[in-house]
């Protein structure tokens, strides 16, 4: 395989479809970056997130397979329906898939799980 062809067209299609399905499910914007981080992972992920079209209602998943790093950034509006504990669960799902070497499966399952959690908004004025 030539260098630079990280994913086959079928794998790209699979990830694109997972993103589309997630966006349909919860009305948030999803974005997945797979590649090397430039500098520190968290600031880099936040920089990518800020450059999205609608950062406040966007969820960015950053996967650095070379450094085995994973970052999820949620915008303000996204954070209201997707708290950090729910994000942590999705991160765990992705971590276990990545640890088995299943990059595409981890991404698709993680994105789907994030959307599933975002679909069930937390009650903010209970009690």
């Amino acid at each position, binding site marked *: 395989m*030539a260098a*630079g062809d990280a994913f*086959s067209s079928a794998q790209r299609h699979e990830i694109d479809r997972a993103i589309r399905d997630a966006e349909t499910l919860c009305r948030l914007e999803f974005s997945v970056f797979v590649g090397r981080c430039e500098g520190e992972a968290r600031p880099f992920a*936040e920089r990518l997130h800020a450059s999205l079209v609608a950062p406040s209602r966007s969820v960015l998943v950053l996967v650095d397979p070379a450094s085995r790093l*994973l970052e*999820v950034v949620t915008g303000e509006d996204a954070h209201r329906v997707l*708290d950090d504990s729910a994000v942590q669960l999705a991160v765990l799902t992705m*971590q276990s898939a990545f*640890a088995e*070497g299943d990059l595409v499966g981890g991404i698709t399952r993680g994105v789907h799980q994030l959307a599933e959690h975002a679909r069930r908004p937390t009650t903010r004025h209970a009690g």
Partner: protein
Amino acid sequence: MTNRPSRPGLRRAVRALALTPALVLLGTAGTAAADAPDTWQTGPSVSGLHVILLLGGVPLALFVLITLLVYLPSMRHGDGHRPGEAWHGQSEWFGGPRGGLEAADRTTRHAVTAASGPRAEGVRAEQDTQVGPGGTSGRW
């Protein structure tokens, strides 16, 4: 009960009269016969095999060509990232901005800090004091 035909013979005659033109036309029409116009040039005779090759072979060749054009790029690219394989590819951004990483590089620092800083809107600020940008990190 008043709609019943009083004279069935008359109805039959009218029906026969209506059908007559069609029957006359059908009866008088002969078999269609026409020769090729004299001005047409007679070309060399074409064999059946040639016709089959032309009408079947050309579409088949086009079919094979289009199939190859569709599948060749993905065949050339291989199977992508295989499970357990070390990462060797370039960065890919799904659902990212049109400009890709270059667009992110143009994002100035104040945009990031504004996104993660406190909101300026007074009405919603009180409501959203607990909710800002979020997320989490992980390793594997």
